[in-house]
């Protein structure tokens, strides 16, 4: 039977910063982020890829961090909810969630924000149907989704307006 496996050294980038950690092969990226790196914004809701609360972006793609091994993060670029806001303040998607009351208990919110950010970057102007399809891997039990969809639509509007602004400014 397996004896204690040696921990593996991993170098990765989290929210733009180079990070190193040691982990057991069985440790999920979710465990590493929360327990080793202290990034507890990433939530465990089901630990088998069915709720999306642990969503992070790896190399521009949203993934369930409970279904990624920590060791697989070697050389990757990871974005978590902690990296969405920056020194200028909250990202429009965060503002729109707050203004639009798109959260109640808040446990699914980080996962939704990360997925929504990926969606807004990849598919600006997405239809309601596309938003609902692409975010169907994120469960929310409080809101009935209405205000979440509206917040994403509003953020999309604001982002495209600001892109247009920057174009005219150029």
């Amino acid at each position, binding site marked *: 039977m397996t004896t204690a496996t040696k921990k593996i050294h991993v170098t990765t980038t989290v929210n733009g910063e180079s990070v190193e950690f040691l982990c057991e092969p069985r440790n999920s990226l979710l465990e590493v982020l929360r327990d080793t790196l202290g990034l507890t914004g990433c939530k465990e809701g089901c630990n088998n890829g069915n709720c999306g609360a642990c969503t992070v972006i790896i190399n521009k793609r949203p993934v369930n961090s409970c279904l990624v091994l920590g060791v697989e993060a070697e050389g990757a670029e990871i974005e978590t909810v902690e990296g969405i806001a920056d020194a200028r303040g909250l990202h429009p998607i965060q503002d729109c969630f707050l203004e639009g009351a798109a959260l109640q208990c808040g446990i699914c919110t980080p996962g939704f924000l990360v997925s929504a950010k990926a969606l807004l970057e990849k598919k600006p102007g997405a239809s309601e149907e596309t938003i609902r399809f692409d975010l169907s891997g994120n469960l929310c039990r409080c809101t009935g989704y209405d*205000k979440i969809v509206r917040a994403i639509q509003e953020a999309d509007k604001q982002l495209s307006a600001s892109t247009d602004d920057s174009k005219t400014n150029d």
Partner: protein
Amino acid sequence: MATTPYRVIGTRPVRHDGADKVTGKAVYTADFKLPGLQAGFILRSPHPHAKILSIDTSAAEATAGVSAVVTGADFPNVKNKIAHLGEGSVNLAHLSANCMAKDKVLYKGHAVAAVSATNAHIAEEAAAKIIVEYEMLPSVTDIIEAMATDAPLLHADLFTDDLGLKADTASNVAVHLHFEKGDVATGFEQADVVVEAEFKTATVHQGYIEPHAIVADYNEDGRVRLWTSTQGSFTCRQQTAEILQIGVGDVLVTPCEIGGGFGGKIAVYLEPTAAILSKKSGRPVSIRMPRTDVFEATGPTPASFMRVKVGAKNDGTLLAGEAWIAYDAGAFPSGVIGPGCMCVFSCYDIEHAVVDGYDVCVNKPHTKAYRAPGATQVAFAMEQLMDELAEQLNICPLEIRMKNAVKEGSRRVDGPVYPQIGFVECLEALRDSDHWNSPLEGDNRGRGIAGGFWFGCGLKSSAACSVNADGTINLLEGSTDIGGSRASLAMQLAETLGIESSDINPMVGDTDSVGYTDVTGGSRVTFATGLAAYEAGRDLQSQMKVRAAELWECETSEVSIGDDGTFSGNGKTAGFKDLASQLFSGGAALVGRATVAPECPTNGFGAHIVDVEVDPDTGKVTILRYTVIQDAGKAIHPSYVEGQLQGGAVQGIGWALNEEYFFNDDDQMTNASFLDYRMPTMLDVPMIDTIIVETGNADHPYGVRGVGEPPIIPPPPAIGNAIYNATQTRMRELPMSPPKVWLAMQSSD
């Protein structure tokens, strides 16, 4: 729209805890850490019903990294004593045995032992080395089978309680309830039309996204400190103290942010176990419940079997009702049957009625409250029968409801008379809504409506507001905030004092720092804790009057407070913040306090409209359009009221269409995951329109009624009625999942 007399109430400020929740900084229990924190893992029974013959923990204890192992033998013996938990009561022996089995396991997932270790993987591996010897017993999960005299018996000492009278022989029926009003036999004789049918609903779970979690530290001084995810920190404290047989003052509960509850986070599951692990290991211990355990070993809400009969006159007037209702209690007597019996006819004035209810133990997890506990099951029956009556009488479904809707003075079957309520107003709003007045076109499409009622309760709440040097306020209150209640409480205090919501820092206190406050449940927080915040503000104002009189060198009686919160006296005026900062520089600090126990139900009513399309080839139901209409009394923060209505409706849609516990032939749950326990995803529902009706509430200074619970009730019958409208097939079983709808459509062809 009528103009509102309020400055803050009715506006939509950003919630105070919002920034923390969109940046990942908010601390939920699983995010909380202590130095030396151990991870716990609970070993659970694979069998639905078995005697525990022996438990050998030696191999687990010898595992490197393991700090403690506990079994039922480590739990104090608790008497068969009933403890009041504010809302509802509990038998402590049952509560303790549900946290950790002693002699017998009563459902698959029942805890039998727990291990703490340096990390969760080691704890899990060590737990797997615990050898439990079981003697298998026959099991039963079906309500009707469990009621049979020859059914496998869960508890040898359970004798049916018939309002204080105990049965002679033990059975699985914990409680029989019986209500009567008028003369039901005569009522049915006089009825021109009678409809009667049997209905079944499946076990469903609250489905909160945050699994239960606990951090416990059994301190060397004998105090137990708990950081936990609970709907009521004081209730949690009491349950834990009773199970551990220590004083309530020896337990400190710090409520962390809570990731949903809906009634499922009132009872304790992990707290006593974690505390005992901590005591034995001398270290703080955390336990995070895996999602499978959340389904298998916490408290879903009852499955039901119902036979309901209703009679009416040709003009649609209801004359008589009869209901026979059995709810699945799970492994221990539950309490959900009571409100079920009280709610079955609660929306309509019925002269003659009789209700019988049974609370039935089965080898399933101990059932608990879930948003309007017990009301949704019976509404599924009654609200469909209303449509059946309407059809037979050739009356519009809305008209028959309007004709019989309860109003002020209507007497419920269980006795009490309604004060001013808003069901008629909700039905009128439905009648006038865009949804109701938009024609529904297309094949296989149908529209349904249904009403719903939930009591809403008061109970105890406490609040204190401390004034800062700049006149801003720190509001300390005792209600754990699950859906934005810090904002709705701060807004009420801001309205009272004449300041802005953003001038208040609301904070949920721990059990050492804030006055006793009952659970966040019963749709009570914005109502009752809101009243506490209001009263605390009033207390502060009366203290400030005295101090203003000193400052302005006049009599206290000469100081008055305007509607906008401005103080005036002796020719001087000052707004709240201005006066508060003037007073801060001299004299004692200002703290307003209140503790309240309003006893009046807030009587929440709602009515829903739904349009569906049924795929005739597969039986799959698509929700095309949905509107929730509900009387909020007065909406403090309309966005969060809408959110409650939308969220409740979607939970009801899930209950209606796909959610259910599946059990195999061995009575083991087979779908304990978010993959197979099919809660609605974003793609399964449309936008949910809301119409907030505001009829006020004389028992609250701002007219608030509780809003959380009613919206889950109407969706199953409204969707059932819509399916009938679309297909002429009447669904009598929940969930109305595609295989069942398809099969029903085959047989009704």
